[in-house]
Every structure is written in structure tokens, then in C-alpha cells.
């Protein structure tokens, strides 16, 4: 079974998120990046399928953005067979529709039976990537998936899709298909650093150019701003001790604490 996984870079929230001077984008100058959490889970699900359901090849596809090389080497250390990056030289990530076109072009050339994309990314402002890639590839799509079991012959996959209220639908999907991954059967595995370092020496990052996707965004951002304080909200100010004292006094006032 050929499995393709999309892994995006997102700003690492370890650093404060600042709004750029334009007022229309996040300031990525000097930002730290990390692999998108849901994509990391998609990769884990792919590796688990490879380990449990017979011979499979996992290919990771990523844009050359942020700290992508380290993310790709870590993916190779975890067990990805191929790591591909798409050249990209813009300061801001592409809008989802444009990104979907770029990923789809590479994934189409792989002839993947199963495509896994994280169901969310914390920097997505407009729309989710996974259904857009499915649309571009003309593949069946199931989102918010938290477990995947391909059949022995690889013709269908049993997927577990989560609904509000912790309801779970078990459904069979004909392959090829694209799944939006919420979580994997196991948390993302830890690989020892020695393995990552060895992957840096032995694994090869393939570069695959894609045609210029002259797609514009569906929506344009007019203004990006921090959440405004609502009328019923009180933002506590001051030092940690002052804020803690204020919280205690509010809890007392409301009768939660005696």
C-alpha cells in the first residue's frame, strides 16, 4: 500500500504570536516553527499502518517552509520511506487553496492508495487543507478521523470518524481515499536523537518542483487582531501574586471558596 502524508510547518506557540505591521498577517520574522500536531498524528497513523498491515511505503510531502528539513529527517527516523519537499520561497505560507494545488500535484505523481492529512492546523485562517486536497485529487474524503484499518487486500479502509458528543461512526471507505486525521491509534512515537542524527546523514530529501499555482485565496484578510475584550469579561492585570489574589477573592465572592 502506498501512503502519502502531508506535513505542514506552523508557528511554534512557544514564542508570542505577533501581528505584522501590515495588520493582515502573523509576523513570521524570527518565529520558531514546528510540525503541525495533527499532521504529526497523520504520520504516526501511516507508520502504524505500515507496521501492522503488511508491506507499505510511506511518503511524506511538505513545503520548503520553516524548519522543514528537521521535521523531514525526524519523519525518516520514525520510518517514512521517502521524504519530499516542494520548493517554496515566500515569507508567508500559501493560502490553503494554493497549498492544496501544490500538494495535490506531488501526491498525484505518487499514485497513493491512501492520503493522510491532519484535520486541523493552528495557523489555518480560511479553510481546512484536507478536503481541498481531496477535491483537487478527486478522491473520496472523510474528515475528523481517529483510527484507520485497511483491509488485507488494501481495497478498502475501515475508518473511525468522530462526531460531537464523542459519537464515533465506523465506516468503510473505498481506496484510494483521503482522510483528515484527528488522532492516531497511538501518540506520535519518540525516536532517539541518535536515529534522527543518523537519518540526517543517510536519508535524502527529494525536491519536487510544482507548476506555479496562480490561485488566489478564496477570502482576503482585511484585518488581523487580538480578541477584543467582551463586555462580560474582566481581564485581570498585575503580577502573578496580584492576579492569584484577585482570583481567590472572586472565587470567595461567588461562594466557590469559603
Amino acid at each position, binding site marked *: 500500500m502506498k501512503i502519502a502524508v502531508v506535513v505542514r510547518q506552523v508557528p511554534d506557540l*512557544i*514564542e508570542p504570536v505577533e501581528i505584522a505591521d501590515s495588520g493582515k498577517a502573523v509576523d513570521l520574522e524570527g518565529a520558531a516553527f514546528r510540525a503541525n500536531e495533527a499532521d504529526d498524528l497523520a504520520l504516526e497513523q501511516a507508520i502504524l499502518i505500515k507496521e501492522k498491515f503488511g508491506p507499505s511505503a510511506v511518503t511524506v510531502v511538505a513545503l520548503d517552509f520553516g524548519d522543514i528539513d528537521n521535521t523531514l529527517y525526524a519523519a525518516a527516523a520514525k520510518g517514512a520511506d521517502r521524504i519530499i519537499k516542494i520548493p517554496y520561497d515566500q515569507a508567508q505560507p500559501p493560502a490553503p487553496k494554493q497549498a492544496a494545488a501544490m500538494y495535490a500535484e506531488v501526491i498525484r505523481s505518487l499514485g497513493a492508495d491512501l492520503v493522510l492529512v491532519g484535520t486541523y492546523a493552528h495557523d489555518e485562517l480560511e479553510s481546512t487543507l484536507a478536503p481541498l486536497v481531496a477535491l483537487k485529487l478527486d478522491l473520496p474524503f472523510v474528515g475528523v478521523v481517529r483510527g484507520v484499518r485497511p483491509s488485507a487486500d488494501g481495497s478498502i479502509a475501515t475508518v473511525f470518524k468522530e462526531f460531537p458528543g464523542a459519537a464515533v461512526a465506523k465506516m468503510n471507505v473505498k481506496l484510494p481515499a483521503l482522510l483528515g486525521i484527528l488522532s492516531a491509534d497511538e501518540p506520535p*512515537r*519518540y525516536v*532517539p536523537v541518535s*536515529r534522527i542524527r543518523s537519518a540526517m546523514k543517510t536519508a535524502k530529501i527529494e525536491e519536487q518542483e510544482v507548476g506555479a499555482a496562480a490561485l488566489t485565496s478564496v477570502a482576503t484578510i482585511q484585518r488581523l487582531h487580538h480578541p477584543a475584550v467582551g463586555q462580560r469579561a474582566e481581564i485581570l492585570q498585575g503580577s502573578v501574586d496580584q492576579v492569584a489574589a484577585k482570583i481567590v477573592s472572586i472565587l470567595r465572592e461567588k461562594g466557590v471558596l469559603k
Partner: protein
Amino acid sequence: MAVDHARVNPELEFLTQLDVAPGRKTVLNCMQCGMCSGSCPLANAMEYPPRQMILHARSGYLDDVLKSPSLWMCIGCYTCSYRCPRAVELADGLWPAMRDKAMQNGVQPPTEVRDAFQNVFKYGNALGQSPRKRMGWAEQLDVPVRDLSKERAPVEVLWLVCDYPAYHPRNRVVTRAFARILTALGIRWGVLGNKERAIGDCEQIFGEEGLFESLVEYNRELFGKHQFEKIVLLDPHSYRSMERFYPRFGAKYPVEHYTTFLAHRMDQVKALLTRPVEATVTYHDNCCVGRRCECYDPPRALLEAIPGVKLVEMAHNRGDALCCGGMWLDAHIAAHGGDRLSDRRIREAADTQAGVLAVSCPFELSRFEDSAKVVGLEGRIKVRDIVELLAESMDLGEKETP
């Protein structure tokens, strides 16, 4: 006649070719006396207590040990190694090597350990904090800090602040006090600012050899750019790592834990200890400066030099001191029925009737303070770093003690 052990058990090469410190021996010297299991504070909760780990590994069942949760019950207190009559290198040798091998075989470490490893790999500190905020401790400081990452200059003391003293709010109080003490002693000191990264002691004990090596490489290059006479640390784990494991990679430095560093300047220190600190104090020997380095007297000498301090000893002290419970394994140990060692230790401290439990390791302040709350001793016994007590007597402490 020499026995061909390798013919019996192919893993023996792994078990016997570990790097051991001078005077220490490999696992083939184990005579199965059980001193390690009898001494281990968590053996009662282990599927394979230390002696059985060795027995099984030596008998060709290493794989069973590697898959057992017991492998991750050891918090590195070193009592097994310290008491072993055959001087087998356990806590600093065999257990880390087994963990390394387990992880290479795909065994997943407990979540807290995994998070700490990932944080250190990505951010250079186990707390998962921004490397750019490493100097946050110095923001409210009233003495000048020589940040060598901004202004390179030769110094007498290169102070490696380390992760907890740099980031943890409780420890930052101690860190600032130490900065004032160094300044008051007239020492030309500097720090590495936001360039500093973890030394890697816990990574090594927990078996992440590759991560440890990458930290050594980074630090060796960083230290090589600076001129200093001595490295001083508040963290005994990092101190011990630099003293014992860094030389293995050709990274050898004159390094001192703050307790010995200050004790060596006792006359100068004493001259500054002007205000009495009226307290009965008991000292907790940490596992690195204590058992591993057998450095028991300098911390006590510092405490006894403080006017007003009356030093009393706990039932377990010096080489027999109980461990505080270490780092990163609380949830794993609790899940497998092990005790919280800091709870045990704080009760023992309170039994001495001391009003202050003095420590010299940054992990211990918040650990013991939490335990004091858990076992109902909050208000009855305070936990203070030796640095805080010295600073109070020197009138260099912070006005508000937490």
C-alpha cells in the same frame, strides 16, 4: 579457565562493554547479593528489582527487562551503585544503557520523559520554554549581569545557570540571590545568556545517549568561545555530568558545584554573614553532590557558618540520604504503585523538629514544597536553598520569600 559468556548469551557483549568509571566494574562482577534491590527505594513496586534485572539480562532475557515498566522506575538516586559491594556501575552505567537500548528497539519512554527529551532537543531546556526567555530571571535583578553572549570578555567564573534556575519561578529567587552573592564576593562572573542550553545530565541518566552527545557537542563549541578560569553551577546534576561524563568526549573543564565553590572561600563568605538567621535547619544531601561525589561537608559548613543556624541531621543522611524522587517519573512511578519519595523525605525532615529543610539542588525546592502541602506540613517546615539562607544572612535576599 575463562568462560565464553558470549556463547551463552549474545547480549553479554552489550552488558560488558559499557564505559565504566575508574574503580567501577561491569555487570559480570555482580554476585547477585541483592544489596541493590534491598537499597532501592522503589524496588517494592518493580516487576524486576535491580538484582533481577541483572539476573535476567545476564541469563539471556534482556529483552523482557527492556520491555518492563521497571526499567523506567529508577530515578537515578545512585544508592544501588553506592552500596554495591562489587562496585558494579548500575545507576550511571547499566540502567542508562538499557534504556538507550530499549528506545533503540522501539520501546516508548514514559510521557513525562518523552516530553522532556523533545523539549531539550528542540528548545535546549527540559521545561519547554523559549530559549529567548532564558535570561528572564535577571529582569528584576539589582546587580549587573555580564551576558557573555552579547559581550565577550574573560571572566573568573563562568556561571552556567541551567534550566530550572533560569526558568522556574521558585528557583529564580535563588538564582538572583546567587548573582548578588557572587557580586558581593567581588568575583568577576559572567553567564552565557540565551545561548546557554541544557548540560544533559538527566538525558544521560535516562538513556538518551544521542541527545546527550548532541548537547555535549553544542556546549563544547560554546564554551570554547569563552575565556574563564572556572565553571560554577547551582545544579548538582549538571555539575556531576560535566565532571564525570563530559571528559569522555574530550570536554574537560575546571568545574565546581556552588557549595564547594563557596566553601573554598569560607573566610570571605563568613565576613558577609552578618545577620542572624534563627532557625533549626536540616540538610538534604542530593544524590549528585552527595552519594555520587561524596561531598557531604561543604554544604554543612556553609549552613553552620550562618549565625543563628542550628544544624540537625535526619535519620538518613550523607551517603544514606533518601532521594527526593528525581525528575520526570512521578506519573509513571505512581501508575505502578511506587511511593512519592519526596513525601517520605519531608516527613523525615519534620521529624527532626527542624523549621527549615535546606537543599542544594534546583529540582528539590518545588518538589519538597509540594510534598509539604500533600502531607500536611505546610507552615510547619520551610524549604530553602542554602543560597537563600546565605543571602538572608548577607542581607542580599529578596524581601518577599515565597
